[in-house]
């Protein structure tokens, strides 16, 4: 269930990222990121390919452990219990070798959600209920992403991480998913999403984090970011230029 029904965004303790760095294969891939992310609303992470967006998200979710620095959720350091309240949709989602419905049921069961009807309802939200008995690995790329999203939503997370979760979707599906996300946002789930779709970022974002070469170059309200990005990297990214 959701933590709180408070309407004030500032009322809840935020997510605190305290100077995290991550080095893999002698490459400094996350370079001293510190920030404070609101506990509600939609935060969008943007940045060029290889900037470290996926890695940063993995750190936030506890799938990668930074070499230094710490992450706090409501003043508590990240732990499996906190991780359980979060859900992540991966850039290329893992699909269990089972039917679409069985994929839902597996996740639902992990969170004590035993009624198959609920799974069907969540499938319906992403227009996949007609494929419930279909082998999930035979779904199209976009259908897989929708299944992954439904799987993430059925856990009713307090924080939902989405790594380019709509990158393979057609315009109609993208719109449906965005509506879904806005609904989930209104219900109080925090959403952190990575996207290269500037239109989508403008439609959804409350605030934007811009990453370049493992550095958080700026973090601010969406409106001011899109109106006047502060860093040169963000400026050229938004202008569609290669960031070097």
């Amino acid at each position, binding site marked *: 269930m959701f933590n709180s029904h408070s309407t004030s965004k500032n009322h809840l303790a935020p997510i605190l990222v305290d100077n995290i760095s991550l080095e893999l294969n002698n490459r400094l891939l996350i370079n001293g990121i510190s920030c404070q992310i609101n506990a509600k609303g939609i935060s969008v992470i943007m940045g060029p390919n290889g900037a470290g967006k996926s890695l940063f998200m993995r750190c936030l979710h506890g799938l990668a452990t930074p070499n230094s620095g710490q992450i706090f959720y409501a003043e508590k350091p990240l732990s499996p219990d906190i*991780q359980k309240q979060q859900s992540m949709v991966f850039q290329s989602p893992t699909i269990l070798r089972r039917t679409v419905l069985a994929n839902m049921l597996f996740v639902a069961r992990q969170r004590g959600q035993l009624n198959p009807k609920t799974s069907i309802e969540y499938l319906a939200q992403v227009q996949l209920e007609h494929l419930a008995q279909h082998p999930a690995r035979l779904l199209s790329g976009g259908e897989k992403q929708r299944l992954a999203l439904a799987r993430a939503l059925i856990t009713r997370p307090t924080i939902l991480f989405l790594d380019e979760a709509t990158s393979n979707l057609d315009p109609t599906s993208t719109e449906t998913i965005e509506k879904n996300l806005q609904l989930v946002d209104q219900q109080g789930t925090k959403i952190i999403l990575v996207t290269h779709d500037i239109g989508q970022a403008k439609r959804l974002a409350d605030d934007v984090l811009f990453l370049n070469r493992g550095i958080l170059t700026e973090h601010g309200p969406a409106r001011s970011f899109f109106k006047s990005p502060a860093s040169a990297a963000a400026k050229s990214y938004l202008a569609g230029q290669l960031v070097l």
Partner: protein
Amino acid sequence: MTIYSESFFAAFNLLATADKDLVEILYLSINVSLLSLALSCFLGLPIGAILAIRQFPMRNLLVGIFNAMMGLPPVVVGLLVYLHLSRSGPFGWLGLLYTPEAMIIAQMILITPIIIALSCQVLEDLNEDYKDFFSSLVVPKRTALVAYIVDARYSLLTVVLAGFGRAISEVGAVIIVGGNIDHLTRVMTTAIALETSKGELELALALGFILLGISLAVNFFAQWLKATAKRRAYV
């Protein structure tokens, strides 16, 4: 008629009349192979799973050793088991030499590495695919292990079939430790070897046909499993 065609005719006759000796040999062969297979799976599948999923020191070395052991020469295994079970050997007091149990032990030594190495590979691939998702969901270890085995069931069954194929057709080890004693440790492969050397081809041929049939059936079954798994997108 020539010896050649006579032998075939007599062999078919043995098959058609379900000759008592033939049935006995067949029965023992299948019993020994299935028992060693069952024991090897009981031992090998969990080891394969642990090697696939857990990271620990020496893990890679162990995987390498089991992979190498897949190619153990049966006669050498037979010889080693013989040495251990013979009266002067460390396990001589068990009195197992020249019994079906000795054959089962030898076959287990041959099959278990196959089960371990192949199942490890299958589960390792699956783990590579599932691990991030499972750790994101914070899936308990046991649940994950069950999910791995369920989702890899087709490939794992193929692994088991490979083990059975090796067991039923193997001759070098069982002839040394079993001794090919009539009505006691004579199995298809050892009977074929003996009958052929005596020049009595009909029993050898009849058994050969059965062995060939089993081998083909196992392979067709494995093929069918693969196709089914593919159709249902389990691989």
